[in-house]
Every structure is written in C-alpha cells, then in structure tokens.
C-alpha cells in the first residue's frame, strides 16, 4: 500500500526533534491564542509569517498549521468557561458549553470538547492522506481555463458562506482582486497603481494587508467595548465524563467529524462553517434536542469535533490545488511563497517530505493537544485572567516588529496602519474582510490564467464552457449564486448565521 509508505515517510519527517519542537510550539501558541478572546489564528499566523523566513519550509508550515488546529482546541475552553468564543468557530460551543459549566459540569464539557476534537483530528488526518493524492493527480491535468474557473468557484463559495449581505461580499472579493493587481504586471512589466511609491512596485505585501485588516482592526474593535469577564475557575474539579455522557456523545462526535471533514474541503469552508453546520444538524437529529441551549453535551461534542475536522481538511484544496479555501489557508499560501514553494498539485510529487510530513504532524499535534488541554487545563484558565490592557500592546509589538522586518522599511508599518483603517471602516459598514483576503491572494493568479486561456482560445470566451471540468466549475458557481439569491434560501441562510 502506497499510503503506508507515504505515511512512514511523513512520520520520518515529523518525528525529527526539530520538527517535533516546531509542532509543539505551534500547538501551544494555537491553544494560547485560542483561549484568549480577541486574538485569532489569522492575526497570529500573519504576525509569525515574517519570522518563518529563517526556518526550514517543512518546520515553518508544521508550526503554522499547528496554530490553526490548536486554536480550535483552545477556543472551546474560553467558550465553556467564560461564555465568550475564544475563537470564532467556538461561537456555538458557548450555547451549551457555558450552560454545562453553570451546572457545575465544566470538566466533562472540556473533556468532551478535547476528546471529540482529538477523534476528529485523527479521522481528518486520514481523510487528507487518502483524498489529497488522487485530487492532486486530477489537478495536474488542469489547464489555465480550468484553473480560472476553479478560482471563480472558490471565490463564489467564499461569498456565499460569508456573513451578511451578498452584494457586499462580492464587492469585497472584487476589491481584493484589484488590490492584488497593484505592482508590476508580469506580462508587460508596467507598474500598476503604484502612485510613484517604489515600495509597492513588487505588489502590496500580503502579510501587511492581513495584519492591518484583521489584526489592527480587531484590536481597535475590542478597545471599543467595555466588559468584565466572569470565569468559572473554581468549578473545574472532575474532568472525566460519566458513562452516560459517553453513551450520548459518541454518535454526535462521529456525525460532527464526518460533516466537518466534508465541509472543510469545500472552497470557502473550514472550521467556522463546520461547527455551525454540525450544531444545526445535531439539533435536528438528536433525541435530546429539547435540551439544546440548556447544557446538552451533544451541543458541545458535535461542533467541537466538526470544527477540528474542518480545520484540517481545509488543507486539502491548499495542498492539492494550490487554492486557499479560507483566510488562514490564504496565509499558508503566503508562507509557502515566502519559502519559494509554488503552491499547487506538484507540491506532493516534488516535495513529498513537506506534504506527508505536514499531514503526519497534524496527527502528532492533535495528540499533543489532548495532553496540553486536559491535564494542563488549569494553566490556560489562569491565562484568562490576564487583562486585555496588557495583551494588546504586546500583540502590537509583535505585529509591528513582524511587519517592519519584512523589508526593513518603515513604509510597511504605514501601509499596515492604512489597511487597519480600511479594516475598521469595513467592520463599521458590515463588510467582511475574509472574502477580500481571498481575492487579494487570487487576483494575480486569476489574471494570469485568464490571459493564458484567452490567448490559447484566440479570444473566445466560450472556452471556459467548452472544456468539461471548467464548465462544471462554472455551472456550480452559477447554481450557488442563483440559489443564494432566491429569497427563500436567503432567509434560511440569514437564520443559520443568526444562531
């Protein structure tokens, strides 16, 4: 079996002491930022990107991946104990997890979240290992028209799954695409939209945009709100769920894992969508649906398994197609490009160590996370008592140093501040930044593939509908947009995001 040989290769890479250490650093950081409300994985990964310059590519990606799925573990802790989502994908865990904590069952809730996440992490690792290679093989046959249509599909999916207004999400994607075009045009060598600023001749730095739009805007938004946190620290005494609990959670964990794995692969999917989907599904099928919202353990088990599964399977489109499905994956592409790796289907054949090492490291990381989260839960709870007024200046220091070190140029900090302002305005106008970031990454790629496809077809735009794979991507995109535009479904979508 080829898969075992591949996994063995992966273990060889992931178990090297240095990579183990990077994995540990990643998951610890992930848990940390997951626990702390107001610090998300997007901002953290953006912050750490410049630092990965000096690392080996495998080690860098292992660490950054660890932050993402580690945050899924940490986020549940805060959701259960403080009724605040430490991470946006833990929003639904607040509903029942916090109620369980109020009933003195914080321990079993935390254990359920961790065990569910661990099970989901194991399954998702296998899913990635099994589905990525065949998908990459298909992707190797893609030409420019297939790539262009696939990117359209990815962007449409991101729009459909964004919160709030559809038109605004499309606008944000377009804005991102255009900002991605700033800098020297590769085909003609013409400098576009640089306004005489030499610093952006090579394009606007992705890290700078992400840190401004997410990091700075998040901090400023948090400073607007006042609010005391109530932490259930003394209540966490017994951790282990009862036999009755186990009976009730194994099915939700299974369902959550499979739903999460499936939703994670979708363009636009990932942890957030998975946890929402799993909670809604569980509420429909559970025998205990009347207990939901009042401390049903299923309401913790299903979304927590799903968000971890989704976080991991969202690596599949990244690793096989080179196309990010959400903002975190867009950052991972940034990390690969910093290391000189062109993301795409060839990564698996050209750099098997990187590919399989990363996959295996996810499983190892999950193992570390269970240990980090159950016996050491006390430490993380203590962290929750660190006031935000100490936290945000520290985050700013890391962000500024990170951005400055990109090219040792003060202009990058100014640019970051400008994007911070844009991000804040967007939040105020209820325009979500995530679709913009996707557009930003895909802008140059899309233009390049569009040009090539049109050149090959001698200017015939119908080429996108004549090739079967390309046509099916476009048809799915159109169907998605049409469905979402129907008033009936739009209402349902709004309701789903309301919950």
């Amino acid at each position, binding site marked *: 079996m080829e898969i075992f040989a591949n996994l063995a290769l992966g273990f060889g890479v992931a178990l090297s002491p240095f990579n183990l250490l990077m994995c540990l650093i990643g998951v610890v950081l992930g848990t940390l930022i997951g626990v702390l409300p107001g610090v998300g994985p997007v901002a953290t990964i953006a912050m750490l990107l410049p*630092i990965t310059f*000096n690392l080996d590519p495998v080690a860098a990606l292992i660490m950054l991946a660890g932050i993402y799925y580690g945050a899924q573990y940490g986020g549940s802790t805060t959701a259960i104990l403080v009724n605040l989502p430490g991470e946006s994908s833990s929003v639904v865990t607040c509903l029942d997890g916090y109620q369980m904590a109020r009933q003195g069952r914080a321990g079993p809730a935390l254990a359920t979240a961790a065990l569910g996440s661990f099970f989901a992490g194991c399954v998702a690792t296998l899913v990635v290992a099994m589905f990525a290679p065949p998908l990459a093989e298909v992707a190797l046959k893609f030409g420019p028209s297939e790539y262009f249509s696939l990117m359209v599909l990815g962007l449409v999916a991101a729009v459909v799954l964004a919160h709030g*207004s559809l*038109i*605004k999400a*499309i*606008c944000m994607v*377009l*804005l991102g*695409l*255009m900002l991605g*075009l700033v800098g020297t*045009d590769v*085909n*003609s060598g*013409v400098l*576009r*939209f640089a306004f005489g600023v030499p610093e952006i001749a090579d394009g606007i730095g992705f890290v700078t945009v992400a840190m401004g739009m997410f990091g*700075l805007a998040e*901090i*400023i938004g948090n*400073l*607007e709100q*006042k609010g005391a946190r109530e932490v259930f620290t003394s209540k966490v005494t017994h951790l282990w769920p009862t036999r009755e609990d186990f009976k009730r959670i194994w099915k939700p964990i299974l369902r959550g894992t499979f739903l999460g794995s499936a939703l994670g692969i979708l363009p636009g999917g990932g942890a957030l969508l998975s946890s929402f989907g799993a909670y809604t599904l569980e509420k429909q099928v559970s025998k205990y649906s009347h207990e939901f919202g009042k401390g049903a353990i299923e309401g913790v088990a299903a979304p927590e398994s799903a968000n971890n599964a989704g976080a991991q399977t969202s690596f599949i489109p990244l690793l096989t197609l080179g196309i990010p499905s959400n903002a975190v994956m867009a950052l991972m592409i940034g990390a690969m490009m910093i290391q000189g790796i062109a993301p795409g289907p060839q990564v698996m054949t050209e750099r098997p160590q990187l590919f399989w090492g990363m996959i295996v490291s996810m499983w190892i990381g999950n193992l570390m996370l269970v240990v980090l989260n159950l016996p050491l839960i006390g430490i993380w709870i203590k962290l929750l008592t660190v006031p*935000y*007024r*100490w936290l*945000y*200046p*520290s985050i*700013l*220091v890391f*962000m*500024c*140093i990170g951005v*400055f*070190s990109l090219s040792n140029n*003060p*202009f*990058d*900090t*100014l640019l*970051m*501040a400008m994007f*911070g*302002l844009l991000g804040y*305005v967007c939040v*105020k*106008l*209820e*325009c979500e930044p995530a679709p913009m970031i996707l557009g930003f990454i895909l802008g140059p790629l*899309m*233009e390049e593939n*569009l*040009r090539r496809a*049109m*050149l090959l077809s*001698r*200017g015939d*735009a119908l080429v996108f509908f004549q090739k079967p794979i390309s046509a099916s991507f476009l048809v799915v995109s159109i169907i998605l947009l049409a469905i979402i535009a129907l008033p009936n479904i739009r209402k349902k979508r709004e309701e789903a995001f309301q919950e």
Partner: protein
Amino acid sequence: MQIKSPKDFWAGAMFIAFGAGMAAIAIKDYQMGNAVRMGPAYFPTVLGGLLAILGLVLLLRALALKGEKIGQFHFRPLLLILAACVAFGYLLKPLGLLGALLLLVFISAYGGHEFKWKEVLILYAGLFVFSVLVFVKGLTLPFPICPEAIEDYCRF
C-alpha cells in the same frame, strides 16, 4: 432623497470610489489590448467596472430599503493605535528599539480604557527585554537597539 440604510449607502459609495477610480486610472495610463492579448488595463478595468456597478446597486438600494445605522466611530483607540504603529516604523532607525517600543507601548496603552503609568512601564520593560532577546539576539533581525545619538554609550 433620504438615506434609509446608512451602512449600505456608504459601503456602496466606498466601492464606487475604489472601482471607478481604479478603472479610470487603468484606462488612462495603461494599455488596454484586446481579448486575445490582454494589456495591463484589461482585467482591472473589468473588475473596477463590476465593482462600481455593484456599489451603485448597493447605494441605490440604500435609498429604498431600510437598514441599520452605522455604529459610532471611536476615534481615540483608532487614531492612537494607528499612530503608535506608524511612529514605531518611522522612529525605529533613529531611536532604536529602546525608544520606538517606548512610543509604541505608551501610545497604544493610552488608547485603552485604563492607563496606569507604573503598569505600562513594567509592560514596556518586559517587552523590550523580550524583543531584544528573541528578535535581535535570537532571530538576528537587524534592528538597532539603542538610539543613534547615544549608540556609543549604550551596549546590550
């Protein structure tokens, strides 16, 4: 004419400004080419046009459909946080980490709800030591530690 949905109205205005502005620059300054050989202006013009049209839809819709008001802008954290970042960037070379971090930490802390001198000073000292050890010594980033003026008297 009355704006019934300020959030959508201003979002629409913003998108029109970006879309139309960038499309106009593209048309004026760069080569358009044709569908077979697209020039540098082609793709931005299409995108900018689309953005402006959708922005206009948003804007017109905001005149008809009722929507939410825009939440209050909090200028104090906004301006102070942004200023702190810019100050750090432009003063890092002349003032070194010692001075630039001082500005960054104090200005940003001042943008929060509570500001206690002693606390911020301790925070600054901790972050300074950490940054020197991790970033300058550990990751060997080429940042000056001390201000230029007193470089000769200041060794870490």
